[in-house]
């Protein structure tokens, strides 16, 4: 199992700070596509992903037990 943490407005859309999902063997892009479909999340392509607090690209493969954080870049200032 994998814990997925949501930051900023992603958390509002999902309604939870984190979810437990089975993502082992999937790529980051696959996980994003799955979440986007399930929760009507907007534009996940440009959302940054950390696996175990380290930046991960969209083609990185998730291992069992990895903690994934989805951090949307914001533009306010």
């Amino acid at each position: 199992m994998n814990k997925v943490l949501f930051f900023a407005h992603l958390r509002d859309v999902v309604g939870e700070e984190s979810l437990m999902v089975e993502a082992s063997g999937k790529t980051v892009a696959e996980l994003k596509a799955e979440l986007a479909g399930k929760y009507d999340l907007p534009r996940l392509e440009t959302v940054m992903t950390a696996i175990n607090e380290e930046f991960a690209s969209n083609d990185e493969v998730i291992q069992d037990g990895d903690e994934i954080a989805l951090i949307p870049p914001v533009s306010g200032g």
Partner: protein
Amino acid sequence: MNERYSRQVLFPGIGKEGQEKISRKHVLIIGAGALGSGNAEILARAGVGKITIVDRDYVEASNLQRQQLYTEEDVAEKLPKAAAAEKRLKAINSDVEVRAIIGDATPEMLEELVPDVNVMIDATDNFETRMGMNDAAQKYNVPWIYGACVGSFGMSFSIIPGNTPCLNCLLRTIPLQGMTCDTGGIISPTVQMVISHQTAEALKMLVEDWEAVRTSFVSFDLWRNQYSSMKMSKAKFAGCLSCGEERTYPYLDRDNMTKTTVLCGRDTVQIRPAKAGEISLEQLSAQLCSLGYKVKGNPYLLSVEMGGERMVIFQDGRALIHGTKDLTHAKTIYQRIMG
């Protein structure tokens, strides 16, 4: 050394030598909104030799809740932010040379300004300008500090050409719609925490303590008591067009920028985003409604009343701003909503 900086000189990370370096350096701040005014005040108080600050906007009542250099008088006089900032910065520290530029940070302007500065600070409110800053920083080898915030959520990342990944490595493309303070709201403590990170990084760069510069990407949420520090060593992208081996600096190219045109005799400006793409009008409509804007629409377009102007947004991101002929003003309105 001036008594004025004594507490800063006492701090071992700065010292006398560091203070002398600070006093000879030049910092460029793009934006004089919340992040810009806060960064400028801290760096002016710290005794930076020269500060150049660029902004295209003027002071409005809704800025006062978080933009720390400005007063009710500046709103009454409708002063341009760069001019109001300059006035206050000089009252704070007359040793600092302040150059205020009222205008849009276009690729041309960045190419002119960036080669002369030691550090650049991101205080803009849209990704298009940031990508231009990122390219100019890489081209002229100037470190810069990304910062952004919305609601209680903020982030910062230090970008050193030739060393760290760049903003284009992280995003690969300009997000079609980022969350802005005009769509998600903002509280002042969030702004201040981004500023804390940006100015701490700027001071490290100004005293040339490169070892101390933060290598992780910081993001935090003050209302939800979250803080995250993401390691970035794997984020550098070899094929990056901004910092990779075959770089082209795409965001210094006018062809890749948002285009603004006055529509003849119509008191209307057309805005065409650099990258065509489908936006969700339904989501945008729901979001704008919940923010209290008057929105009408059909499957092909949305029409939004915004003060004196009306913005019509099409599915490909193109928009018409009715009620103005001012290109910069129209672009400001557009990027406030679209990020």
